[in-house]
């Protein structure tokens, strides 16, 4: 058993795959981070992320999988779900070792697991597309804060860029402390540097004059469309789990 230690990036993962084949390693475990304690008897190998090697592996994967298959693998990696490294590696090795495209072999445990991860990530992405609430600030910027379960912000760019093409907007992931900003031409990743505690009050202070009115109208609308005689709280909470409520205007 060899433990490969890599930096957690997609290029790092692909370089690790390169090393597995270069050193003809059979039984391997993948570990994210810099150090690894307590594996005295295992062999350890540090993966040095290498763009060229990563690119070679990616090229091979593009031959073995469909375009969609490669995208799905990337989305699964992006999710950053702890402990899934070995499933990603397993999937890639299975894809490379098989003569034909295996991405629909749901009987295989790696293929199935990747498909489950992708489903979770897609659902989170879809939820963000639904639950993001922009607040209009005085300088014309539409701002939204999110705290998604997985790192889906990069997957949101396309949707919001094509939808809100005529306004400046920013979506900020409070949990991962970075955001995307659209300036009417392009989007870029940004980090904001302000204290956690007074953030929301800062935002409220910067509202345009009609922001409160539209929030109020929306809350009212939400109440008006409810049909009391059909109340079904269980269904309601299944659709909007409580952890999303604090950023939803109508649930605050």
């Amino acid at each position, binding site marked *: 058993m060899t433990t490969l230690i890599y930096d957690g990036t997609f290029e790092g993962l692909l370089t690790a795959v390169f090393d597995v084949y270069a050193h003809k390693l059979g039984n391997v475990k993948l570990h994210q981070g810099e150090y690894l304690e307590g594996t005295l008897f295992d062999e350890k190998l540090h993966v040095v992320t290498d763009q060229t090697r990563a690119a070679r592996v990616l090229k091979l994967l593009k031959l073995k999988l469909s375009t969609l298959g490669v995208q799905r693998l990337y989305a699964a990696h992006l999710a950053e779900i702890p402990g899934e490294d070995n499933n990603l590696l397993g999937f890639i090795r299975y894809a490379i070792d098989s003569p034909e495209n295996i991405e629909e072999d749901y009987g295989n445990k790696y293929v199935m697991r990747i498909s489950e991860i992708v489903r979770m990530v897609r659902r989170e992405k879809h939820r963000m597309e639904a639950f993001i609430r922009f607040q209009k600030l005085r300088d014309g910027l539409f701002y939204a804060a999110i705290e998604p379960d997985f790192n889906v912000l990069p997957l949101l760019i396309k949707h919001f860029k094509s939808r809100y093409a005529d306004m400046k907007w920013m979506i900020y992931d409070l949990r991962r402390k970075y955001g995307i900003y659209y300036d009417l031409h392009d989007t870029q990743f940004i980090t904001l540097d302000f204290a956690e505690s007074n953030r929301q009050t800062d935002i409220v202070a910067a509202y345009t004059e009609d922001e409160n009115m539209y929030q109020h109208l929306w809350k*009212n609308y939400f109440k008006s469309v409810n049909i009391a005689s059909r109340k079904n709280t269980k269904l309601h909470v299944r659709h*909007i789990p409580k952890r999303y409520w604090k950023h939803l205007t109508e649930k605050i």
Partner: protein
Amino acid sequence: MLKILVFLNCMDADRITEKLNILADAAKYDVSCASSGSKRKNENKGLGNASNGICHSYTEDGRCVSLLKILLTNHCIFDCAYCVSRKSNDIQRAAFTVQEVVDLTINFYRRNYIEGLFLSSGIFKDADFTMERLVRVAKKLRLEHNFHGYIHLKSIPGASDELMNEAGLYADRLSVNLEMPTEAGLKLLAPDKSHQDMIKPMSYLKNAIIQHTEEKKLFKKAPMFAPAGQSTQVIIGATPEDDNQILHSANYFYKSFKLRRVYYSGYVPVLEDSRLPALNTSVPMVRENRLYQADWLMRNYGFHVSEIVNNQQPHLDLDIDPKLSWAIRNMHEFPVDVNRADLKMILRVPGIGILSAQKIVSARKFGKLNWEHLKRMGVSVNRAKYFITCQSKEFERRDLTGSAIKQFILATSHSKYNKNVPTQLNLF
């Protein structure tokens, strides 16, 4: 001066809030919330697009909130017994201006509250007058505000073909509500209306949609015409039609008018009327749910309507879903070997949905599937196990009758409607 302006602004906000409350409340019994099925793209750096549909929120009764669903006005010249806005009902009346609806839509859309607008209306003055206002809202959104979000307009029966044509050019979806599943039911509750009036705009639009789709094939630049098609709604439980009549009527409209969706709205008793169920009657939610399940079987699972309901079987089972119900009436079709059967038959197995059926068919090319595989693919094995075999020595060997299977499944599953069941059992 500034103070006066602020004051006026407040007045305005209060008045709009009041109107929104009244006109959203009156519109909520229209159950359609779909914002999918269109393919409108954002053009010229405008605002919005419409494609797959997103539910931006859910009401406390668990329904999707996707569109700003409002009436332009709840003033109405008709007196339909089932409708809150009927002429003789003593309620608060209100009306939006065209500009107010446009502002609300744009501002809600920019904040990502909604996918677009669903605009309906009571009939004021006459059909053309009303339809003209609805069209004007859509036109203003599209032409003046470069808005490409989703717009659903009601087609008002009796409106001129010119207006219907214009509506199709600006809206993504149009709908006429049939209200009651049969003409007799409609005559009972809305003597002024007839299905014939509703069929007229429906068939005009059907033909216009076909024509525009043909043009679009020839000229890429040809304008879109109601790209999300037409839908309709029937109210169930207000009149005595059985499920057989309702589903056959729905099937007729799907086939003859190429409707995208038929919505079934369980009657919510809001009005005292001798022709209607009493005010304390509960909403037929289970029945409504079963009708939707049957509708999906017809549209997506390859079932013919008469396999689900017919003269021998005029009602859908309330305690089990229509697919399971069909399966236990047709035990001679089972068991199905998931490793060999074609997709069409796998789709008919209770406990297997469209996604897992497709996964099964893809995955079995690589190797035979067993129970563990099926479970991970999302098959509800608890149900499916009575109807399938797979790569395993374990399978249902007893020659169970349909009713025995029903008992086994009911005993192990917890229906979300359990609390409703006792009252129904008391009837027998």
